[in-house]
């Protein structure tokens, strides 16, 4: 799990042995790029495409982080999409109700209030999940399925299923702006990936989170406060959903109860492809980021080829099965 001896960095074989998942992902990524160069030269890998990928990928990436940290603890958070939509709707309501034509002065304080309110709601949903799982003892699947239904129900009730739209330009900048030539959502994602990575590997909370995923009973008996750690894990997962929704509703310039419903499968796929053990305890952010790039490239290629959305979903399902199959071959032969 923790691998701190970084000598022999230039010995390719030892790198492979140390982290086969990461090496396979790098090879796969390079292979896909090579294929794209050979078969669609100058079609998929264009500057334009790269820019749109850099705008699309962050929300998926942040949601994948949200599901990954719960999978590392041996659980899962199936309510990520519902949480993100709820947070987005709260932010959207605050902005559309409090910012009017007749208002004088800058809308920025209200935008900040809206963002923070959205994050607060998403953290509260996360804490609710965590308490259900850690203190009441509900299985993570059931707890988060229940929360998904409840939160989704509240979202539908307060919006009546309609779209809430029309945000100030300053807010749209978050999802569509470019800073130093790099799309802002991408910068936010990179920052979060680094932060979560440090949190997972360099803090007592992160290590406890991995340990719970490896063996919850042993962790409990070793004196770690498992319940508190799990509540923090799900609260953090909720917060990440909230941040993803800030970007998402800014890009769409609207919020709705049913947005991004297809993302749940894709985030699980990215996590497992990135080397997260579905039973918990193992997995790294670097793997997840590589898996995210691979998936985004493949998805952009499918878009370019004009593949049906349903076929794409079927292929994602197949890819998830193949990935799990390959993991088994690897873990038995090495």
């Amino acid at each position, binding site marked *: 799990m923790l691998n701190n001896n970084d000598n022999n960095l230039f010995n390719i074989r030892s790198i492979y042995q140390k982290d086969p998942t990461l090496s396979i992902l790098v090879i796969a990524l390079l292979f896909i790029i090579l294929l794209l160069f050979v078969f669609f030269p100058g079609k998929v890998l264009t500057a334009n495409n790269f820019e749109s990928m850099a705008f699309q990928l962050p929300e998926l990436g942040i949601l994948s982080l949200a599901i990954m940290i719960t999978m590392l603890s041996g659980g899962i958070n199936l309510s990520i999409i519902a949480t993100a939509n709820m947070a987005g709707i709260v932010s959207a309501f605050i902005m559309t109700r409090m910012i009017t034509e007749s208002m004088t002065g800058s809308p920025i304080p209200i935008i900040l209030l809206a963002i923070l309110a959205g994050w607060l709601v998403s953290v509260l949903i996360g804490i609710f999940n965590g308490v259900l799982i850690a203190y009441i*003892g509900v299985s993570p699947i059931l707890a988060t399925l229940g929360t998904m239904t409840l939160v989704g129900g509240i979202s539908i009730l307060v919006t009546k299923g309609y779209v809430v739209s029309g945000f100030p330009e300053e807010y749209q900048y978050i999802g569509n702006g470019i800073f130093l030539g790099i799309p802002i959502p991408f910068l936010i994602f990179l920052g979060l990936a680094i932060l979560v990575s440090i949190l997972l590997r360099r803090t007592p909370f992160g290590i406890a989170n991995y340990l719970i995923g490896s063996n919850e009973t042993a962790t409990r008996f070793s004196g770690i406060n498992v319940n508190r750690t799990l509540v923090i894990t799900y609260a953090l997962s909720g917060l990440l959903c909230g941040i993803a929704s800030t970007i998402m509703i800014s890009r769409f310039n609207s919020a709705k109860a049913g947005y991004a419903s297809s993302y749940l*499968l894709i985030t699980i796929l990215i996590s497992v492809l990135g080397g997260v053990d579905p039973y918990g305890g193992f997995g790294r952010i670097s793997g997840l980021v590589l898996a995210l790039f691979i998936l985004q490239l493949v998805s952009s290629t499918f878009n370019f080829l004009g593949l049906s959305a349903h076929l794409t979903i*079927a292929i994602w399902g197949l890819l*998830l099965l193949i990935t799990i199959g390959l993991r088994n071959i690897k873990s038995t032969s090495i």
Partner: protein
Amino acid sequence: MSKMFKKFEFFLFLVIVALIVFFAFSTENFFTWENLLDLLISYSFLGIMAAGMLVVLISGGIDLSFTAIATVAQYIMAITIIDYSGNLFSAFLVAGIIGIVLGGTNAFLIYYLKAPAMIITIATLNLFYGFTIFITRGKWIYNFPDWFNQSHNVFSFTAADGTYYGIPLPVILLVLVFILTYIILNYTMLGRKIFAMGGNIEAARRAGFNILGLTIFVYSYIGFLSGIGSVGQVLILHSVQPNAIVGRELEVIAATVLGGASLAGGAGSVLGTAMGVALLAIVWNGLIIMGVSSYWHKLIIGLIIICSVGINAYNRKRKA
């Protein structure tokens, strides 16, 4: 252990009776023969799948792909009887076989890929459903032969005053499925082995049980029930729609868990599941008759799920 579940089932029974009394007095139309029969017909499909889900949960697994299996079975069944005709039996046969094959596929994947059943079945859900909708282009199918579209009633008779009475086939199917599941779980070696496997899979393996065989049975069984249940649903709706079933996984799991089944495996009963389905059906139907805006429905179902899993888990934790 069994005492606790008996207590839980009794508690559930009281809640159902209270709800029936409440809706019967607060609305005019709830406690009528027509409404209750309608309720039974429209929830027969959910009930049939809940019986399959119960067996999977008892074995310690979970299946999220059964709605996709039902959709695949519906399409293939519809195309077969429209192109080659046949009779009601062949329709059920085709759908049942499709269900068994796809369920068996799930079982092999879960057994050999050694990954959580939930992740495998989320993958196969999208695989089965995505390919079906891609190939059929999500077309609705209506043009069934006449013999299929006529109403299928069992034990039908016309009373002296000329009123026609009969029990629709889907309801009969529901009752048969519950009886079959009850017999398998309680009176066969197979059923006891499934309980043992859900209680402690490693102990079951060392006791010499064929885990692969049990896994195949369990997932084929829910596949089979999804297949024949989906034909029952086509008999009610007179059409095959791409999005009529997928997305209802949660309701089925909710009904089963409401009835006392545990995701940890080894626990659950047919009676509890039947009451879980009844509770969901009564709440849903009662809310509609009372005129509660449909925007509230999902929220209320979510609340019911969270309360019931919370109470269940809390009880189990306290006893442990």
